[in-house]
């Protein structure tokens, strides 16, 4: 009776993974006694020598960071987010936040500037889009620009294309801090469009007035600016944006994966104007 060659076991044996184990002796015996195992061992030994040469060649091949990415990392490193912060009481970026609604007057004041700022950003983005190779949306959206109104996220990160790659939905759900804490997971992003649905109205909960409060964020550039501020507030990969409602007010409920953990981040309608307009955040249970 011949024992069929177990190629994984043989690879382990030749690679030293079985050293000091009983399997080492067993495989050794099979190679000595079985022509099939012996042939396979000879073949693999020869092949591994070639693989070693190939890997050696690849290791010597320079793998330089592309210039456009290097430039973007320089921007990231120069941002306040990457400044040394030996704070006496450092704020945990993943800590839960309390509700801090932006005053309506402040929103109204900023709304005045939304259109001219959006136009200026769109023009800048158009220029950059024509002259700069695109970088992935997450990276492009997280260049960690200064987070003051005077120093908005860099235009180079703000393009309709980069905004559109974040899955969005308009569930119209009414969320509360209790429901979000108990939310084991948001709907699968695969069930939603990869591009924001700007045409269809929000369904369900929010009324007409509330819809209009989120209208600004249905513009790709405005959404991208908002998400940039959100990433500064809670670094991570944004996996879903839900145009919905939180405790009776219109809000973006955003799913974020940060350091391997899922988070829900709630942003108000002023998100992206001068900050993320953070209302609430909670880790997924």
């Amino acid at each position, binding site marked *: 009776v011949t024992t069929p060659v177990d190629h994984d076991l043989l690879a382990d044996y030749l690679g030293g993974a079985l050293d000091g184990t009983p399997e080492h002796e067993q495989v050794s015996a099979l190679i000595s006694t079985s022509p099939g195992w012996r042939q396979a061992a000879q073949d693999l030994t020869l092949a591994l020598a070639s693989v070693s040469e190939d890997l050696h060649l690849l290791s010597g091949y320079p793998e330089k960071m592309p210039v456009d990415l290097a430039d973007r990392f320089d921007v990231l490193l120069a941002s306040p987010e990457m400044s040394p912060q030996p704070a006496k009481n450092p704020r945990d970026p993943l800590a839960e936040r309390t509700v801090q609604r932006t005053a309506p007057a402040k929103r109204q004041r900023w709304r005045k500037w939304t259109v001219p700022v959006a136009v200026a950003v769109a023009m800048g983005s158009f220029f950059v889009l024509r002259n700069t190779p695109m970088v992935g949306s997450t990276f492009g959206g997280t260049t960690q620009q200064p987070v003051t109104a005077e120093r908005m996220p860099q235009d180079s990160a703000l393009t309709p294309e980069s905004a559109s790659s974040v899955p969005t939905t308009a569930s119209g759900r009414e969320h509360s801090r209790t429901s979000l804490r108990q939310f084991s997971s948001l709907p699968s992003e695969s069930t939603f469009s990869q591009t924001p649905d700007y045409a269809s109205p929000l369904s369900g909960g929010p009324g007409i007035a509330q819809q209009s409060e989120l209208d600004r964020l249905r513009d790709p550039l405005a959404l991208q600016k908002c998400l940039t501020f959100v990433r500064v507030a809670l670094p*991570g990969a944004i996996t879903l944006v839900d145009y919905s409602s939180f405790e009776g007010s219109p809000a973006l409920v955003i799913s974020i994966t940060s350091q391997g953990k899922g988070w829900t981040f709630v942003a108000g309608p002023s998100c992206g104007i001068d900050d993320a307009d953070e209302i609430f955040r909670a880790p997924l249970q």
Partner: protein
Amino acid sequence: VSTSDSRSDTDLLLAHAAGDSGAFTELFHRHRDRLWAVAVRTTGDREDAADALQEAMLSAHRAAARFRGESAVTTWLHRIVVNACVDRLRRRQAQRTVPLPGQDGETDEERWHIGRHEPAAPSVDLETAMVVRQALAQLPYDQRVCLVLVDLEGHSVAEVAQMLEVAEGTIKSRCSRGRARLATLLGHLRNPDAPGFVPPGKSTIEGVL
């Protein structure tokens, strides 16, 4: 890229933790290409590599004060980068529902045919390097990570075991199986799992995949 700073990596990291505004940037510039190589070879994708490296740098930036010098700074950085890459690959694998061409979801048989050597051509070293890189990208990510760190970056098995928090034997096994799989992907060895496989030396006219 500034490389004139003569301070050691450890000194730079400590200086950053103490509030030196340029220290972290200098450290990144010093190791940028190597960190990039680890990220792009581990993820096999430029955009994933950029995202993972960004997450890793943010993480390293925040964690610098906790560096205790138990390993070289480069090892510490590689560990952070690799873990960011692995997290990203795991998420991608978990989220993937529809297989894309050239990505997970292809059958093993399809995978085995990818990236095999073509007849020799000019610039053979560069071409070979590209073929090897493509083949590497076809490996399961746990094997790929180990080969990148051990065979390409020169870390010891013990270091990698510590980085990935698994047993040394596991690293050895992943490396061994990854190399064996590369041998087939690169055409040095026929696919042992292919139907009708006949060991070399006994091949028939159909003996070439």
